């Protein structure tokens, strides 16, 4: 099935479900006709559907969309006044509170929220048409959650821009603020130990690495990590305990495989536990492509670019 075929499948499913989705979304309340809404649904479907996607899955996809919020957002993007009224009533206060939680400072949060409002309203134009950020909402998550995420992205982008503007003098005055704490180990770490740690970390699952990094590198609390991943706090606590044990075991096994006696390996871990931790930090720090989120689409061959960015980041942090 080519893309034309895919589009016709999407259109077929949309027309099949349109009545149901229109009723659920109450799109007419926001000033959207069923035809307009059908067009929006097709656009969303074509964005996410793949050729290999069975029709059953596609139907489930549409039925799981938050169609009411999708209709509201798209009606706002289309400049429908009744929709804006409902949007502001529903999200205005929430948006300011979310901005305050993110920026943690009154004026910065107001600035953050105001800039998002400008984006939502659509300050840029194309062919005389305002382009509202709400037009990119597709109803896969809640609109409120999406607004919070967009705020957070904007905040992180701004922070990164500010960070880039910090001069070298300021950076040195700020001390370690912008440096990873990696310049500590004066004592050379045994290459075999480093290799074992690498190996052990590489063997971990993505979720395990995320938990480890969130806890040890990002300084998140157990509760925060649990909420990020949608699990209970005690699950994260148990996972961290287990990971520490597993890592130790695997590093020891790696060391013995590399010709170090069990006793020497134990000693290495006991004596140089701080160095080992620093080493783990180094290994975990291989990350963070610095592209801002508005320019996030990495084109073909982007992976290579990404890797070079990572290398650069790594060099900077190590330097």
């Amino acid at each position: 099935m080519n893309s034309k075929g895919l589009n016709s499948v999407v259109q077929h499913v949309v027309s099949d479900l349109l009545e149901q989705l229109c009723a659920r979304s109450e799109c007419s309340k926001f000033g959207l006709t069923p035809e307009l809404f059908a067009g929006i649904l097709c656009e969303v479907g074509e964005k996410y559907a793949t050729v290999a996607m069975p029709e059953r899955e596609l139907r489930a996809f549409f039925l799981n969309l938050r169609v009411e919020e999708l209709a509201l957002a798209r009606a706002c993007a289309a400049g429908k006044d009744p929709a804006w009224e409902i949007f502001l009533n529903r999200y205005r206060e929430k948006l300011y509170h979310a901005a305050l939680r993110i920026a943690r400072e009154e004026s910065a949060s107001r600035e953050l929220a105001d800039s998002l409002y400008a984006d939502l309203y659509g300050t840029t134009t194309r062919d005389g048409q305002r382009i509202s950020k709400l037009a990119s909402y597709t109803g896969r998550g809640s609109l409120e959650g999406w607004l919070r995420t967009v705020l957070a992205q904007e905040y992180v982008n701004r922070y990164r821009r500010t960070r880039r503007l910090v001069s070298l003098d300021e950076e040195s005055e700020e001390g370690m603020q912008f440096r990873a704490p990696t310049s500590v180990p004066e004592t050379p770490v045994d290459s075999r130990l480093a290799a074992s740690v690498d190996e052990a970390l590489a063997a971990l699952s993505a979720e395990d690495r995320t938990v480890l990094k969130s806890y040890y590198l990002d300084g998140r609390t157990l509760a925060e990590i649990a909420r990020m991943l949608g699990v209970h706090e005690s699950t994260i606590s148990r996972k961290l305990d287990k990971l520490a044990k597993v890592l130790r075991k695997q590093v020891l096994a790696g060391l013995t495989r590399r010709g170090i006696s069990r006793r020497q390996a134990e000693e290495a871990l006991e004596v140089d536990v701080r160095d080992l931790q620093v080493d783990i930090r180094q290994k975990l720090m291989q990350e963070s492509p610095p592209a801002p989120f508005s320019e996030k689409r990495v084109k073909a061959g982007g992976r290579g670019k990404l890797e070079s960015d990572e290398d650069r980041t790594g060099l900077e942090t190590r330097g």
Partner: protein
Amino acid sequence: MKASPSVSQHPDAEVLTAFSEQSLRQHERALVMEHLSACRDCREILALALPAVEGSQQDLALVVPRRSWLSVPVLRWGVVTAGVAVLASAGFLHYRQGRPEGASPALVARSVGAKPEMTESSRPPSRAPKTASGSGFDADTKPSRQAKKMAMAEPPQDLPSSLGKVKSVPAMAKRAPAAVSGAQAVASVPSGEAFVAKKQNSFATQNQRRDALQNRATEQNTSDEDDSERLVVGKAKAPVAPETGSAGKVTPNPAAPSAAESAIAAALPLPPTQWTTSSAGHLQRSFDGGKSWQDVDVRATPGLDANLAVTGKDKNELKGTAPSYSSARFRAVFAAGNDVWAGGSGGVLFHSSDGGDTWARVIPSVGGVVLTADITAVEFADSQYGKITTAAGEIWATADCGQSWQKH
């Protein structure tokens, strides 16, 4: 999924939201997780975008930042300790006052003798003649326990005299009724008349505020009373005060009890007028601390067009058309004292210097180019200097109350 995140790309805001809300499919979730394990920024975004936890300490701290200093245990305990210390010293003084050994017997006798009518009621009748004569204390250097009790039971007004201080009983007696009638004193501020008159001047532009409050306080008042009548009613409470002495100016009014209430309403500090813009883009104000809001129609101002303040340029010279205000949607309002600025769609900007009763339209322009973008924020540092922010990200600043503008 075409637009599903790959490991190398930052996931969309939407995909991150869906991840956080557990609504991604298994394989999509695995891809996002893989990305998160390598991208600190996305982890940070995910954490920052978490919804607020109901009643969490963090949120409380954000909501009520001013109370944070009280949360310092040292200060809290300090307040308790200070309270205990005050109570202890008061108790100690009281105890000393009750001890005949602490003061000279003669003094105690004199203090008791000076106010027999006050101590009489608290004493057993059989002891009264003895204490009144004072011989019991003079003859007996060790007063009985009953006498001690009596002295302790005396009202605090005795304290100064029993300690040999200069404050006389009549003075205290004079003070006592004043204190007792404290509630009346609130209603009848000594300079009540002048106070109301002063209010009349200072709040002349806020008649509606006072009306609202007075109406609340005096529901029985007839609705045809005009403002001046109400102020006369306000004066009528002056003779209630024993110390005002302005009985000659009393205007008799049958509605005197409710008049007193209205005077209270007028004398109490009024909540500051609050301003906001409704979601429909109307300008609104509240006189009762935000409980009720009323729309403010800037067009109702007589002679608005005459007041049109096209800043320093002839209207014809301006490039671009000044936007119509008839369908303006207000998006930002700023108020400081009686100065109120309201801006909204199409660069519409209004200024009131009398608390919102009359309005003048201000059309910011630079080099003949009129501001037509939506105004999203208005902020004034004082009555002269301020800036407005537009939806297009421009900042327009004025240093002369909107007469001339600079664009940044």
